[in-house]
């Protein structure tokens, strides 16, 4: 009986939800209206020039190190 009541309650909530927010399944806007490949290509191009944050951190550390120990510059250039 309790289980039956719970199912009935859940069914009422489900029905209420579907009234408030009808399913998108058969709606025309639920189907893709245009090709998204050009937008995806643009997104890929934008990120191809992005530098990860740890590269910037490494560069900052090297610059700081050279500022503190300027005599290390020739050593660094020698090893490059």
């Amino acid at each position, binding site marked *: 009986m309790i289980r039956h009541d719970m199912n009935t309650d859940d069914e009422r909530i489900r029905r209420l939800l579907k*009234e408030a*927010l009808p399913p*998108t399944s058969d709606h025309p806007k*639920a189907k*893709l209206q245009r*090709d998204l490949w050009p937008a995806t290509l643009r997104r890929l191009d934008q990120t191809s020039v992005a530098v990860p944050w740890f590269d910037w951190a490494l560069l900052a550390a090297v610059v700081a190190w050279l500022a503190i120990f300027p005599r290390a510059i020739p050593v660094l250039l020698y090893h490059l």
Partner: protein
Amino acid sequence: MPALEQPRDLLQRFAHGDVDAFEALFRQHQGEVYRWIVRIVRDPAAAEDLTVETFWRIHRAHARYDPSRSFEAWARRIASNAALDHLRSRPRETELPDDLVQNLPQSEQPDPGISQELRRKTARAFGRLPPKLRIAATLALIEEQPYHEIAEGLGISTGAVKLRVFRAVRILRKTLQRQGIEP
């Protein structure tokens, strides 16, 4: 793409970073990925942006893809995560379902026993659920997707999906009861 190319070859080429293979997979799956996302976020414009975001993530993760496994299921999981991030990024107070409802289908034959005010309150209460619970409840209760498909798309077990739906219903019922509505 060669006419006789086998899907497995395509998946392997994609996993090795072949852009043509990625484009072929994109064209095969963009519609399905979009439909999956629009069911979750219920906003066509946001769903388009998230489809692009999903394929960007897919491209970025190509080396981690196992060609012996389903590309579609993998893409759905990535799409679900992108949609979840989108829902999390929006403060719940500003998630006014009225904004979403206008982009969505209205009930073709509304139940006369359910007032417009009750619909609005229900939609608003639903929009305030935690995103993980809302996604599971949207897919299970509103879109009526099979539990095993939801589980696969979210990368969790069927039991976990049922638990999330149960918790969503419980919270929703309590929220409505606090407003004097007996669902």
